[in-house]
């Protein structure tokens, strides 16, 4: 639909010129930016647009997210992340919690999404949760993700909320079933945005690793020096099928490769200290304190943190044969990697 007649009409004639912007942005530019032709959602843009735009009610902003993330034209999952309901009197903050909680349901399975053959649209659910974990170091008062007010303040990520003890009003936990978990990790401040983590290594030796703020910005993320934390590595991994030999493979195997150069490490505290589960399939409740990143040094042989994982998350195990590649649940082999195992658990991140 090209109706331009530049030779006959001037900008003044056709009404253009009144709103010329400094950088010459056109309507087409703006729309193209909002609806990228390629796959994947620009979450920075999404959050920014939601907070920038005007709405009749604050709840409308969240409803827009439900639509966006429940539909496919922006490459979010084909199914809504949570039951789409219309509650006239719902608080916007509660709608946000319900929205993220729906996105987060059973995402632990998706950490190894690529080799499992999950559709990309499902992977976007994980990506959005990882985006929140990665870009908002301050969790909300009740949950592992930022509150609506914290999100609407983005890119200011320094807003802290006092942690509420006890069960959250609205359940929106993130169940992690294929992450790597390290307990008893203590931190030492290096500078404004870097910490040295110290814990027992695989062979009983004390190992250290340097972790830094995800954003590279020095803000108070509430880490207390000398306090023992639980680290959870939720970096997505891939498990390339190099042969078609029948056998079992799990995500905690050594040949699993992290997808990112920079690991996403969640610093957590135990919600029920002293009651560490030891049985299989027990829930292990953690509360996120902040998120840090770890880049394996070049001298590091392993692509994963050097600490001993004293607890194992439940992992989907894959049966490989020449015609199929599918998953089934199986407790990890206690002798895998020669590491001791106290239990196979589902981490419930609150």
């Amino acid at each position, binding site marked *: *639909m*090209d*109706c*331009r*007649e530049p030779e006959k*009409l001037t900008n003044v004639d*056709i*009404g*253009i*010129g*009144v*709103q*010329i*912007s*400094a*950088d*010459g*942005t*056109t*309507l*087409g*530019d*703006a*729309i*193209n*930016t*909002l*609806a*990228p*032709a390629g796959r994947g959602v*620009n979450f*920075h*843009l999404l959050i*920014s*647009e*939601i907070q*920038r*735009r*005007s*709405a009749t009610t604050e709840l*409308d*902003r969240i*409803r*827009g997210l*439900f*639509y*966006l993330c*429940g*539909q*496919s*034209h922006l490459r979010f999952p084909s*199914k*809504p992340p949570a*039951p*789409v*309901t*219309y509650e*006239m009197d719902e608080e916007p903050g509660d709608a946000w919690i319900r929205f993220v909680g729906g996105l987060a349901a059973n995402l632990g399975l998706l950490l190894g999404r690529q080799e499992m053959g999950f559709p990309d649209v499902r992977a976007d659910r994980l990506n959005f949760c990882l985006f929140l974990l990665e870009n908002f170091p301050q969790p909300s008062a009740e949950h592992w993700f930022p509150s609506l007010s914290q999100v609407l303040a*983005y*890119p200011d990520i320094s807003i802290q909320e006092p942690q509420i003890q006890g069960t959250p009003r609205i359940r929106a936990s993130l169940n992690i079933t294929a992450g790597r978990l390290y307990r008893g990790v203590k931190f030492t401040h290096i500078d404004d945005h870097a910490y040295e983590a110290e814990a027992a290594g695989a062979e009983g030796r004390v190992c250290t690793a340097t972790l830094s703020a995800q954003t590279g910005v020095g803000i108070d993320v509430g880490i207390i020096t000398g306090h023992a934390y639980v680290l959870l590595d939720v970096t997505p991994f891939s498990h390339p099928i190099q042969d078609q030999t029948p056998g079992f493979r799990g995500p905690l195997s050594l040949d699993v490769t992290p997808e990112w150069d920079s690991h996403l490490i969640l610093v957590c505290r135990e919600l029920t200290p002293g009651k560490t589960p030891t049985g299989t399939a027990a829930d292990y409740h953690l509360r996120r304190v902040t998120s840090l990143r770890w880049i394996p040094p070049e001298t590091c042989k392993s692509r994963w943190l050097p600490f001993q994982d004293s607890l194992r998350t439940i992992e989907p195990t894959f049966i490989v044969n020449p015609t199929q590649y599918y998953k089934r649940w199986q407790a990890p082999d206690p002798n895998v990697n020669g590491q001791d195992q106290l239990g196979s658990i589902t981490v419930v991140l609150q």
Partner: protein
Amino acid sequence: MGCTGLPVDTNGKPLWCTDTRHPDAWLSIKPQVLHRRKDTSRIELQIWKPAVILSDDESNTRIGNRTYQELDGWVWKLWGGILSDSHRKHPAYTEWLSHFISGNYCFGSVHAWVAWYITEDFRDANMSLGVPGYVFMCHGVPAYAPSSLFDGPDSKAWSDSSILLDGMKCWPKFRINKAHRVVENICPRNAMPRRVWDICANKVVPWTEHLDDSDVVPISHAWVHWEEREFVTTMVNHHLWPIPLPRGVHLKGIRDELIQHNIRYAWLDVLCLRQEAQPYSVPPVRFYEDDYFLQAEKRRIEEWAADIPTIGSVYAASKQVFVYFSGLGRPFNAAQNWQDVRNWLNRAWTLQETKNPQNMIVGGMQGVPVDPWTCQASTCTLTLGPGWTVESLRN
């Protein structure tokens, strides 16, 4: 602040249908759940080829005293290219046409019904015609009682359903089991809205299964300021509620534009989604003030509980979006204030209605000699944060 222009007669009596429980009003059932079929050979083309566009007058003309043969002849005249003898000899055809005559329906309603009747879906549904409550007559077109509304396909469930739906006791927000207990209050994931605008028939009709989701073009627009709106009643939506439109805009102009773009079905919120009652209108509505507005609002809230969650499905499923950047039905204005809070670019609601430009049809372009995509808008949508640029966002 009161709204102006509510359509009332000289006595202040509303000109729209004020009986929210009128048998001719839409049933408050849940939106249609479209069970996609893998058989893609069905009806898509069939409903497009014979799409005869009725004039406003013809669409709104009631059957009156015309005989069955006359109505059948009218249908044959419009649909003869596809309507077979087997269609016309089918008992259901006779039954429905007789119903139209007895109910003195509009020709537009009959026209919209035939579009569904010629589809294979109808023949499927027709097998259930003997089951009370399964197929409803809504303004001359059948509407499903979606099977997902009830648990189990057994006859007992259907029997119960007819009781519930005939009495219109069904709270649309909930799933109801055979014991009439609420078991779930979620909207089905693939639910589509309850109404759609049949452009050829110029009637709002139930969104039945014969529609391919992607053939419905939603109309995106940002609502103009309250004071710039006026309310009209129209037979397009069977006078079910006053339509808020930008002052000076007529539905006919919008329909003409959609026809020019070969759009068969459209979803327009003011037509297909029950609008709020306006109890503080100027001049005041003198009749039904207390009861009507209370009932109308109750009805709207009931419907919105089921309908609002379905809006996203329309935009997601559609191949194209028809968008008015300068207000519904208004000509595109390149010199508008793109930074205004009411501008389409600046509304949170329209974000989910955005598609790639090649999938967006810009409305109001007739006589406007500009390419809307290259006219310069503003940087307002791109001032997102320190250090961010357009390119970094795209990456």
